[in-house]
């Protein structure tokens, strides 16, 4: 799989490149700003663009805006946003347009190299990886909805699903068996009234419902 990186801090860019190469990515371009990123994506059409939110010249949300352009113009390229702080607004902007093939993680998560590699692979394959902080911020706003019917454990499972984890990953994280996780997930699907379609589709819908981004 091929990746493009946009990050204005040289030190960190080197670190991210190493982690991505370790995770099996081929890094075709390293950029320092949004304009460079867009032309690199156009040229290389990578599977994933790993993008810093705050970049020159304005140092605000250049990365988010570039990510939206990439998702619109080159839907085959997934985007993984990295940021010093997770901001709920940026997450909403990013996820409102398209929820597959997007990720939004705190920069400090890169330090947990293996987890980060897994998230990057998930996003590159068209999945979703959201930082636990993004998830908790998105949950802040809701008051009453079907999600309130979920048990705390089911909530944990759903949160990890939103983070892009596989069933086995969730089982390892919560220290339960994989069949228990499957049971929880089925229960979640039922409580959220999700149609019986193929498992992956329902999985994505559950995550969307969880994030308050889908109504059906």
């Amino acid at each position, binding site marked *: 799989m091929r990746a493009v990186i946009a990050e*204005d*801090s040289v*030190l*960190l860019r*080197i*670190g*991210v490149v*190493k*982690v991505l190469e*370790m995770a099996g990515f081929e890094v075709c371009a390293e950029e320092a700003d949004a304009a460079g990123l867009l032309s690199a994506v156009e040229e290389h059409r990578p599977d994933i663009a790993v993008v810093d939110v*705050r970049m020159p010249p304005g*140092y*605000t*949300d250049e990365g988010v805006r570039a990510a939206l352009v990439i998702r619109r113009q080159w839907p085959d390229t997934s985007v993984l946003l990295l940021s*010093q*702080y*997770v*901001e*709920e*607004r*940026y997450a909403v902007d990013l996820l409102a347009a398209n929820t597959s093939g997007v990720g939004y993680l705190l*920069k*400090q998560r*890169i*330090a*947990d*190299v*293996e987890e980060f590699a897994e998230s990057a692979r998930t996003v590159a394959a068209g999945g979703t990886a959201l930082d636990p*902080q993004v998830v*908790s*911020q998105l949950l*802040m*706003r809701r008051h009453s909805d079907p999600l309130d019917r979920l048990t705390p454990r089911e909530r944990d499972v759903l949160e990890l699903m939103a983070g892009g984890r596989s069933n086995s990953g969730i089982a390892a994280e919560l220290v339960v068996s994989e069949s228990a996780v499957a049971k929880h997930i089925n229960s979640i699907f039922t409580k959220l009234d999700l149609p019986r379609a193929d498992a992956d589709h329902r999985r994505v819908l559950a995550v969307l419902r969880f994030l308050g981004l889908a109504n059906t």
Partner: protein
Amino acid sequence: MRFKTWQPDFLWRPFGDAGRAIAFHCVGIAIQSGVLLVLALPWIYFVPTALWAVTVAVVVPSAAVVLAGPLLTRVQRARFRERLGVVVPAPAGLAERPGRPGIRQWLRSAPGRRQLRYHLLAGPLCALGGLVVLVLWATGGAAASIYVWLWVTPWQWRAENAGYVVKAAYVTAAGVALLYASAWLAKALARVDTRAANTLLGPSREEELTRRVADLAESRAGVVDAADAERRRIERDLHDGAQQRLVALAVNLGLAKATLGDLPEEARKVIDEAHREAKEAVAELNDLVRGLHPAVLEDRGLDAALSGVAARLPVPVRLSVSLRRRPSPTVEAVAYFVVSETLTNVVKHARASSADVTVEETRGRLLIAITDDGVGGADPSGVSGTGLTGLAKRVASVDGTFSCRSPLGGPTVVTVELPCAP
């Protein structure tokens, strides 16, 4: 020695400043003579008899004097500055230049009409007083030096008036007394004139205070903005520097941990420890830096920035922000700071299970209420060091109000009002 220094000082001191005062009065008399000359000008050339001619001869010179008001004010100010070293401040926002739009504004304004009162009343009266002082001074001088005058009289006169020596002694004494009196009078009159000028030519007390308040408000706003800008700069520097370096360090340690599989147990432990420490340092620095001035505040406003704060807290926070437009960056920064600090306090001290934050705009005021269901007992006087005083000060720096009600047993309610006029 002592006698020598004592004598001239005592005798001459009254005249020290009198010279300046008299010169000052002389200039004043000259100015008023000029005005009088303008007023008298028509009468020098002809004596009007018809009513219209009298009217013209009175009205035209008077109007000329009134129109010259701003000029006279400047001349008088120069007189006070040059002769007495007294600076009579100019009233703010008043054009004291000759010219049609200026003169209209000048005549309509309260300071302009006050200045006219000086030129038509106080000034001439003081000049008249000055004239009296000059006459007294000259008389005193003449009387004090009577022996000199007697010396130049013909010797026959002296021979005929034999008792003149004793009489002249009295006259000399009276003259010296008159000199002292007129010196005192000259200074007293200068003081009266200065007071009149300060009252009538300068700004009134109210105008002066208004101007001072405006100046202070402006300079304080500058200081507050500068502090805010400084906070932003520090945030930017930390974000671009230390934060990225620390993350890079944590990433490299993570890579070492993941790739160096065949390390001895000891080395693996050290790397693990360093990796954890680095991640904790990143998290700690993030919290600190975000408290300074988050980039999202500038970019997306209070709602976005505060929801980030609320989500990071271990206590559930209900947040409701309803603003029709964005307040100024400084007010936004203060509002953000107050809410984030108060919520930090709630977590640290209140032992609350939940908190409520509402931010709304009513009639040009930004109203912020932060309520928690904790144990209460927060001390707004800051004795217990809860940082509430710092918050109150920061709120006051933008003319806001801060109140904290926190009875023992709770709940604690912090209300803040900030100006957010468009």
